[in-house]
């Protein structure tokens, strides 16, 4: 009868103990690194959450629907900032996604000579290298005066809708949206371009092989194949747009009065935090923390929604 081979059955080509140690060590190291990301995230959330507890107890959910911001009477509500955050982020993406995706298609689908395409791609990427404080200055001194006639035109023609009901007069939500467009455009373009370049050449040939036109191939085959990576880029941009502080603070007007109008000064959560944290004390600090919790939850919800849509939209290749 044969018994099971002993554990040290292999005597040839046995791996030295050091090699096994390195293996184990490496595995532990990656585990630590991976866990540290989660731990930092959790720590941030707990800190902010515990700071916000007082304000949560005092204002409850009313905080989300009222717009008083009154340190004298200690009345706080974040409606202006929440509205501003959502409106600036969503509208800036609605403008930036078509432009960015269009640019990406333009520079990946040999519509232009190679050199020109590379140049456009490079310029878009350089846009991402501009510090946001510089963009903020540019927005105040160049962009906003330049677009004011156009905003006035919007007011005179569409003034009957609540969104354009006020006279544009300098800083406001609309210029903040436009500067966000400038800031997220390079992200969307670069990620979409990489996603489109990664679509296998065979898939393109297959599309042309059944007799599609160029546009048919792009919209029916190439974009669907790239959509999940492109959505990843859009989400990254949405995070950036919701969290962007400096340039937005400089141009949005940091208003304490709620207005639906895009032409009026507004506020965002990030911008409010940046402006007020320095001189806040007591329950105002807690109220700001509460606003930060709201921002984190918003970002989280948006991300989950995005993951879900991506999964529904995309067939893998």
């Amino acid at each position, binding site marked *: 009868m044969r018994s099971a081979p002993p554990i040290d059955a292999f005597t040839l080509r046995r791996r030295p103990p050091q090699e096994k140690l390195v293996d184990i060590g490496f595995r532990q190291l990656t585990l630590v690194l991976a866990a540290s990301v989660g731990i930092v995230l959790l720590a941030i959330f707990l800190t902010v959450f515990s700071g916000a507890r007082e304000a949560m107890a005092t204002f409850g959910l009313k905080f989300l629907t009222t717009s008083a911001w009154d340190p004298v009477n200690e009345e706080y509500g974040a409606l202006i900032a929440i509205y501003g955050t959502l409106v600036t982020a969503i509208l800036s993406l609605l403008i930036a996604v078509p432009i960015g995706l269009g640019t990406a298609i333009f520079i990946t689908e040999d519509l232009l000579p190679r050199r020109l395409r590379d140049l456009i791609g490079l310029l878009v990427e350089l846009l991402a290298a501009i510090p946001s404080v510089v963009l903020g200055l540019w927005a105040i001194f160049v962009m906003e005066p330049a677009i004011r006639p156009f905003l006035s035109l919007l007011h005179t023609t569409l003034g009957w809708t609540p969104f354009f009901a006020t006279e544009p007069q300098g800083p406001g939500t609309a210029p903040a949206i436009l500067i966000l467009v400038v800031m997220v455009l390079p992200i969307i373009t670069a990620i979409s371009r990489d996603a489109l370049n990664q679509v296998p050449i*065979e898939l393109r040939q297959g599309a042309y092989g059944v007799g599609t036109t160029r546009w048919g191939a792009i919209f029916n085959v190439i974009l669907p194949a790239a959509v999940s990576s492109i959505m990843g880029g859009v989400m990254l941009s949405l995070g950036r747009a919701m969290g962007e502080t400096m340039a937005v603070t400089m141009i949005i007007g940091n208003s304490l009065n709620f207005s639906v109008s895009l032409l009026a000064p507004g506020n965002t959560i990030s911008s409010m935090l940046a402006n007020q944290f320095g001189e806040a004390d007591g329950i105002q600090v807690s109220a700001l923390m509460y606003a930060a919790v709201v921002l984190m939850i918003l970002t989280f919800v948006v991300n989950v929604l995005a993951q879900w849509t991506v999964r529904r939209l995309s067939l893998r290749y």
Partner: protein
Amino acid sequence: MTASSPSTVASDVCMSLQDVTISYGSFEAVKNVYMDLPKGKVTAFIGPSGCGKSTVLRALNRMNDLIPGCTLKGRVIFDQHDLYDKRVDPVEVRRRIGMVFQKPNPFPKSIYENIAFGARINGYKGDMDELVERSLRKAAVWDECKDKLKESGFSLSGGQQQRLCIARAIATEPEVILMDEPCSALDPISTLKIEETMHELKRSYTIMIVTHNMQQAVRVADMTAFFNAEAVEGGTGKVGYLVEFNETENIFNSPSQQSTLDYVSGRFG
């Protein structure tokens, strides 16, 4: 027909290549090809790699247009027109001359949509369910697909994907189907199935197939074209040319060129 009415091509000829030279940039990949591809037959292109089989095949439905720098001299006559005439729209060419590629490349869509997509853009107005079933049956993959038409084309095995791609090409109702080494990524059983499919298809279509498998050429092809490549003086690489084009039997049993004999009997470098 009109002024461009180029040639008196015999009526049993599907496509006629007349002094075709194809270059990538300044590199001439294949030179001076004359060939009359017969209607309703299977023609195989064989030859060592790099001799320009794929290049010639892609020229037949203007897929080479997608490769920057690729140019063609000479004429490719199909249905009494030069496919490379300025007035010819390459998209229409590809709708009449379909293609199956070396690597299975289903679209990132459901199995059903993979078939329906091409048919729809080709203006198919009839019963789509029926067309999908008919195409999948012709490509001998209906049984494997019928219960999962809503699933991704990628849920199939490699051989099934390739037959899905054949079904996709059939669904656009082309007159000619080009196949570039359609079995090179497949196992022997899938290969046999696809060969059966080809026998089925040649009743209604003209087929040109590139293959590196000589047994396959013998099994499926009525006609065989043997290509070879030779280094030329002052050239940058090997230039491909058509050595011999004849009935498959003749090519394999009594070729007229020594290099053909060397190649088909496996005595080739």
